[in-house]
């Protein structure tokens, strides 16, 4: 074969065809096509890119993303300590409120961002070989970076409020990981549904609002009337938030097990979580090969 023409682009070497040309089957598009390594690299790249865009794109950058939970916090704090006064009966209520808002914010922002993520990244999905799962996961990861920054503010606030660290703070990663798993699973479900059913976005925005009020974000679970407590305790988010409260903010609170009336009470939320995780994997694997056709 005639090699090396004069005007090859710089950096390119003419390559003599190798003899090693084994045919490998091409399976087509899938959730993680192209291998784990490539998927991880792309995930990191997309998430970092998105993160940079948020924080270096605007003049005040990071402040804006912090401003949102803080504003919400200020309003809710005023309402629930001055108007409804539920806050005055809960120890460390302002800290708890901020902590819950930021933690629930991970779930809320990631799932809301994930819904339309595949459609928003249409160019990538339709024009390159790209593992589909990386797209919603990158939204979750970006939100997680965000949460990391917000948590700094939260812990500054916790110290300032005068809460002393205890050994249970070491359990905080457990809270975070559980929240992250649930968030990821739900993100996978809603993002896989959206290309096919476009009203997933509207339905999900309503559902998140409902979940915000139905989960113990603004109030502790024990403040819920007895009759309703069992219903509220089915929600996996409730268990996670109560665990965070018990371990970080207020050791005197019931904790994740007692809040749902003992170990037996943990069965429904755990079962629901596992169900959501299973559904997410099944659904995403099923939809992934067809996503490009539905955009």
């Amino acid at each position, binding site marked *: 074969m005639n090699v090396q023409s004069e005007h090859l682009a710089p950096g390119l070497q003419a390559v003599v065809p190798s003899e090693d040309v084994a045919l490998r089957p091409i399976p*087509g598009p899938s959730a993680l096509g192209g291998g784990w390594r490539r998927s991880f690299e792309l995930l990191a790249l997309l998430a970092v890119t998105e993160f*940079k865009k948020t924080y270096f794109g605007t003049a005040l950058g990071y402040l804006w993303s912090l401003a949102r939970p803080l504003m919400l916090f200020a309003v809710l704090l005023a309402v629930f300590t001055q108007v409804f006064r539920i806050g005055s009966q809960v120890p460390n209520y302002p800290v708890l409120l901020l902590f819950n808002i930021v933690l629930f914010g991970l779930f809320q922002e990631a799932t809301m961002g994930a819904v339309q993520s595949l459609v928003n990244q249409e160019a990538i999905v339709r024009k390159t070989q790209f593992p589909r799962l990386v797209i919603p996961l990158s939204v979750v990861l970006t939100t997680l970076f965000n949460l990391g920054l917000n948590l700094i503010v939260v812990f500054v606030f916790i110290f300032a409020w005068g809460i002393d660290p205890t050994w249970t703070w070491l359990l905080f990663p457990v809270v975070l990981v559980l929240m992250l798993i649930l968030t990821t699973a739900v993100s996978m479900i809603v993002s896989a549904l959206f290309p096919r059913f476009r009203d997933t976005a509207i339905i999900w925005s309503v559902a998140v609002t409902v979940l915000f009020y139905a989960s113990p974000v603004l109030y502790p679970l024990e403040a819920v009337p007895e009759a309703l407590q069992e219903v509220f305790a089915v929600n996996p988010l409730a268990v996670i938030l109560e665990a965070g409260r018990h371990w970080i903010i207020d050791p005197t609170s019931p904790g994740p097990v007692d809040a749902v009336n003992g170990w037996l009470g943990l069965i429904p939320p755990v079962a629901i979580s596992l169900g959501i995780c299973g559904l997410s994997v099944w659904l995403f694997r099923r939809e992934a090969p067809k996503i490009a056709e539905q955009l």
Partner: protein
Amino acid sequence: MQGQTGVTQRTGAPPAAEANGRAPVVIEARGLHKAFRIPEHRVDSFKERAAHPFRRIEYRELQALNDVSFDVHQGEFFGIVGRNGSGKSTLLKILASIYRADAGTVRMAGRLAPFIELGVGFNPELTARENGVLNGMLLGLTMKEARRRLDAILEFAELEDFVELKLKNYSSGMMVRLAFAVMVQADADIMLVDEVLAVGDAAFGQKCMDVFRERREAGKTIVLVTHDMNTVQEHCDRAMLVHDGELKFIGDPEETAARYYRLNFAVARDQADDELDAQLNAVSDDDAVRVISARLTDEGGRAIRNIEQGEPLRLEAVLQARREWLRPKFVVHGLTIDGTVVFEFTLDLDSAEEDRVAEGERVRLAGQIENPLVPGRYTLNCWVRRDVPGNNWAMQAMQLLEFDVYGTASRWGVVTLGNDLAVEPQPGSRP
């Protein structure tokens, strides 16, 4: 005329036959099927579902690919051609792992990079450096490779001085240069190129093709999906024709192109009849002459709008005198689309009686014209003149029709002419 003096400039390429005989297969497609189910009522909301839970959704099955099998060999410049809707884009997307085939297998040797659009994933908020890495990875490089090649990319794009500039501050020319440089550097073993890359700026399209040819000479395999037959003839070693989801031909690019034209313009023929007449009636509605109908026909007398190169132009026109014509002359002009007159014939009225046409009377202008025209668009005009001694008085000029000549010959010049030119060494001149 048929002896197409095909001036295909395939320079420095190893003969395709030789490559085929030896080179191993790098893409092997077997029995590819792909159908799209198109719902009769689009059901993409839950509400639709909820409102009619028991209505079976009716689908129309669109067979985009039907049992397509082929091989591409290493080092080939391979063309996949077909017109819009033929299934070639679906095939491209299956090869690129964007769509999944319903049935059939694809196997490949080596890494494939799809070039479907320049600068996929470019983000205006990021710098050239960041975008270069991002785009390189989307084209299949690993992060390490993408970083390693970044300098070469920026150098090739001549953007070393603007590395940290955000893309939104780039001119569109700089952006294209960056995207193109990434594409050049992201060279995979197999490059899958969509035609959109080649359209637009002609100079840029040429530059792309030059790069692909260089890569091919370096042993890489290029698969080009296009409906531009000139590109296929000029660059490809082999080509394959897809039509209505089926593989119609695979082999010599010239032959592929010829079949493409035949297949696609044959479709146009059937539709041409009625609409053509109606359209042309409107062309001239002036004082002296009215065009009742004007058409080119094929051998069977059916109206056609496009004619294969070398096929005689069979003209059939009916003109009506709207006032009396005395001693009329009929001048037929053939013009290129930019107005150059290619031929002119002057015809007398062929009448046994007197040399006049009464008001309301019709004349029929018909016959064959030899057709050495190169592929392109042409116009046939007709003048009706009155022959007054010493003075040619034009009564009216009108456009009869427009037509396309299709074929695989070079588009240079206006006509292709038979010749027996030869070049040989002059005897006795060797020192």
